[in-house]
């Protein structure tokens, strides 16, 4: 087991040498690269990475360029998880047979968007977690298929306007509720499952390091504010992320061994969900008189979820 990187404060963290490069083609203000930087900088160990098809993959591997300073593989939309699980299984086998050229313990990390995680790669991801590979899967959850022009995914929340669930005269946009991916992954019995947000960097680093130290498959759901599809100005990425965590739309918590739930961030002042919705163009239509009841429902849903999380934390189940 390699030594864990000691990160006490942001000044110390800023001495990290990034292994993710600029001149990738992600939109200005994209939260994806903020998350990727925080994940990669959380360790000094060797990294073996994969990415599912999505914004992150198409923007960081534009032939003839790569933006990754570590081993990185892309195969298909659905199999970022199995690609990295295969690498992990190979590493384990070579190590057992004593055929590794250098004795190293790399970390295996797969990145996927919410489309690749909640929908298309779900079966593959589930298989990896069942087999118990020693890997980390990071879902960059921007609640939409941003790469292909903003189609809804099963992570898209109620009321959001997406190109395949547009808001208009007859519809208020997406009608299905967001899938609770963390509960599903925890139900696999994974040793560590957590929700993170890039604006709470310290919480995120701690969770990523806990994930690296865990023995078995780790699922990280990272909230990734999308300036293009959520429709806000690029400089507001962190402000929107703050609203998301402070309004408890994205509560930050972790589930250990599939059962024990801990809430890791409690906002000092809880922001009304209405403010979070009002800051984004994709919810603009909810503020019409006929759809205002949806905002009330949103608040009730978020409150109920927060209440549920608190009760679970208290009962330690």
């Amino acid at each position: 087991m390699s030594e864990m990187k000691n990160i006490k404060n942001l000044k110390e963290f800023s001495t990290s040498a990034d292994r993710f490069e600029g001149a990738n083609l992600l939109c200005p203000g994209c939260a994806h690269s903020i998350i990727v930087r925080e994940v990669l900088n959380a360790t000094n160990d060797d990294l073996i990475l994969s990415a599912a098809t999505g914004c992150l993959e198409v923007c960081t591997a534009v032939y003839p360029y790569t933006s990754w300073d570590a081993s990185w593989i892309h195969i298909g939309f659905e199999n970022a998880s199995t690609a990295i699980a295969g690498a992990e299984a190979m590493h384990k086998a070579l190590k057992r047979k004593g055929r590794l050229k250098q004795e190293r313990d790399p970390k295996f990390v797969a990145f996927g968007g919410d489309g690749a995680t909640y929908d298309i790669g779900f079966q593959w991801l589930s298989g990896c977690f069942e087999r118990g590979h020693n890997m980390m899967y990071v879902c960059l959850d921007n609640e939409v298929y941003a790469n292909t022009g903003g189609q809804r995914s099963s992570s898209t929340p109620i009321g959001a306007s997406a190109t395949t669930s547009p808001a208009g005269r007859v519809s208020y946009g997406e009608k299905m509720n967001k899938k609770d991916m963390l509960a599903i992954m925890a139900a696999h019995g994974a040793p560590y499952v957590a929700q993170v947000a890039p604006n709470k960097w310290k919480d995120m680093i701690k969770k990523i390091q806990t994930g690296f130290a865990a023995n078995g498959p780790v699922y990280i759901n990272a909230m990734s504010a999308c300036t293009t599809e959520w429709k806000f100005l690029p400089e507001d990425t962190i402000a929107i992320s703050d609203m998301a965590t402070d309004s408890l739309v994205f509560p930050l918590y972790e589930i250990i061994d599939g059962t024990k739930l801990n809430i890791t961030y409690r906002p000092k002042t809880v922001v009304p969900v209405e403010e979070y919705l009002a800051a984004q163009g994709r919810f603009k239509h909810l503020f019409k008189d006929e759809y205002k009841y949806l905002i009330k429902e949103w608040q009730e849903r978020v409150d109920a979820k927060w209440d549920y999380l608190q009760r679970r934390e208290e009962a330690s189940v």
Partner: protein
Amino acid sequence: MQKSGWSEFEIGAMLRSFEGATNNIAITHQEDRPYSKSNSFTASVADWRIVKPVFNKEYCIDCQFCWIYCPDISIISRDKKMIGIDMDHCKGCGICVEVCPTNPKSLLMFPEQQDEEAALSEWPAKEKKEN
């Protein structure tokens, strides 16, 4: 870089980030890395910008908020100090300015054509807090 025609591409492609063997990339900073031509570090997205951040060292407290929240690895921090902006990779999103906590801000957005000296000379004064 010599670009290949469509029929010359391999079905699978492997790109090397560095020239030759590398060790301890995780503790080697950009200036000491042997980047290869296929590393996007050697490319530039400077032409994406219509506004650019200008750094005023005088007010900086080295809190490193800009470093952690920069999506494009364009804030250069060495030895816990913010030392400048990588203008080849900055896309001008403006996050660094938004998260800068000093008063007045030590990073501000200016039009891309603005002369940096002129920008520094017209830096706003400290704002009084309104209660």
